[in-house]
């Protein structure tokens, strides 16, 4: 029983930082509970790595059939025919890429502009308050944005925006065809709303991390406020801003609900943004519970695997870029 009160008899605070080696000290620490606590927390920390590995394993083993049957053709053919069990993912890949890229093109200038305003111009109080509002916007569940998309954004696009685009830029292939409201354009706008908070909050952080000396030096040389920001501060924070763009891109590629609700869910490849489309995430959401037959189900899981790999690679890149700029652990979106 005396051993349970061992902590009181071993006053060696220095071992807190430098664990000893050797069996005797291991037993000693085991008795005082340190080693047990260490092993338990280690097991839980390791579990997150194991879960991720299990995730990859499950996705891989549950998508064997389509890989055997179609191979790489799966990614480049565009027939999606559950009846004759012929699956090609090209329309979904196309839709995912187009909506993500268009939303990035919309969100990038807006987001970086807003971040510049918050980091460089706004007084700290206002900057903080607005940054918090941006965080709240990021917290809005995607199904709610989808709800607003269906009942607010789609009618607005159909009656106001699309006729305007058609009249002004109708000679471009992107703005032709029937104006349904739902379609690639609606999905891109919803995605823009969803990724803007990421770009703003991370870009703002990296801009704030730029040393004040840089600004002062530029201003002292006679630069205007804008010139100091655009030619000195922004280039300094460039890498971190790229990081925020990659994070936003990964989010846009994997976003499901809001996109599913407004994109029209039609697997076709069309140059026009007015046309309905389909994304990888949307087809999984729509057809997973209806998938009869193993090949059908596993084709959907393979789509999930593709999505997983692409977002993982982009995320990994983004984290590296952000770490390089802020040099203090990975940033929180």
């Amino acid at each position, binding site marked *: 029983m005396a051993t349970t009160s061992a902590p009181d008899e071993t006053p060696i605070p220095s071992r807190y930082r430098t664990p000893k080696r050797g069996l005797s000290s291991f037993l000693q620490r085991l008795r005082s509970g340190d080693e047990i606590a*260490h092993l338990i927390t280690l097991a839980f920390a*390791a579990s*997150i790595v194991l879960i991720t590995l299990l995730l990859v394993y499950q996705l891989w083993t549950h998508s064997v059939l389509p890989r055997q049957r179609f191979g790489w053709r799966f990614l480049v053919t565009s027939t999606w025919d559950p009846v004759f069990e012929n699956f090609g993912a090209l329309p979904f890949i196309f839709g995912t890429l187009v909506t993500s890229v268009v939303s990035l093109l919309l969100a990038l200038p807006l987001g970086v502009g807003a971040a510049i305003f918050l980091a460089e111009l706004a007084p700290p109080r206002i900057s903080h308050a607005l940054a918090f509002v941006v965080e709240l916007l990021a917290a809005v569940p995607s199904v709610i944005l989808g709800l607003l998309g269906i009942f607010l954004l789609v009618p607005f696009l159909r009656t106001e925006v699309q006729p305007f685009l058609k009249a002004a830029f109708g000679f471009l292939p992107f703005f032709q065809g029937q104006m349904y409201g739902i379609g690639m354009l609606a999905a891109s706008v919803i995605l823009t709303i969803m990724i803007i908070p990421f770009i703003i909050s991370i870009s703002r952080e990296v801009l704030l991390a730029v040393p004040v000396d840089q600004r002062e030096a530029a201003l002292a040389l006679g630069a205007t406020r804008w010139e100091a920001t655009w030619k000195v501060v922004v280039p300094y924070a460039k890498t971190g801003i790229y990081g925020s763009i990659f994070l936003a891109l990964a989010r846009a590629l994997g976003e499901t609900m809001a996109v599913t609700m407004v994109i029209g869910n039609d697997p076709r490849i069309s140059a026009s943004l007015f046309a309905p489309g389909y994304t990888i995430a949307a087809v999984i959401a729509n057809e997973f519970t209806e998938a009869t037959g193993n090949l059908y189900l596993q084709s959907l899981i393979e789509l999930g695997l593709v999505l997983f790999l692409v977002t993982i690679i982009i995320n990994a890149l983004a984290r590296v870029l952000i770490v390089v700029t802020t040099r203090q652990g990975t940033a929180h979106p």
Partner: protein
Amino acid sequence: MNRLLAWRKFVNAFMLTLTGLCALLSVSVLLIVLAYLGWNGWQYLTWTFLTHLPAPVGETGGGMANAIVGSGKLLLIAAVTGIPTGLLGGIYLAEFGGKTFAFLVRYTADLLNGVPSIVMGIFAYTVVVLPMRHFSALAGGLALGVMLIPIVLRSTEDFLRAVPNPLREGALALGASKWKAIATVVVPASIRAIATGALLGLARVAGETAPLLFTSFNNQFWSKGLNQPTASLPVMIYEYAISPYTDWHRQAWAAGFILLMLVLIANIGARLILSRKGPALRG
């Protein structure tokens, strides 16, 4: 020379105004979301909505009581599985972690955080639904729990690192062993912040729909226990919103209103708790 200066000043003013407009536009989106959802949701929010089961197709009225309870159930499972794992993992990273392995865990957590939620749904489907051969609250809750782990892990680690070292040294100097110092001094010192981080994580997964579509599925009735398909607010909002019935649309608005209020209250509450100076560092 003067004309050049005037031009530069004009560009300066113009671009700065433009960035202000960007900020205004981005922020106003949230206000539009809030205003529109508040207006529509509040209008259709009734007592019946909160206390009744969904009405059969074609009948008006009915509510989403089962979805509200179902969401609670899913979040409970997520909390029970995700929070302890994240918490203990976070303690490891902040208090025990070496270099290489801790880096690996941290990086994996960040990557897991970025995995699309629909992929988490597939994961839970292959791990729980396929072996059990039916949809269940358990599968949905686990999907949310796995999403919760990296969030809790990273926030716990950050908050533990913010605890000043003298507190640890003091505990050790008084003869406590390391785990005692962690359990009785370090963690209690930041427990409020850690709990807030967990609450934020729960608020985030509470709005997730995609991982529930083919794990907890949906249910027009009460579901008993954890082993049956279970209705949840986000999935109900989705199905009602894409349905052709006006009455269902109204219910979707009301459900969306409740969900958004919960998420916003959790976020604002968390911000208020965290922004209080010197969060309970009295030990």
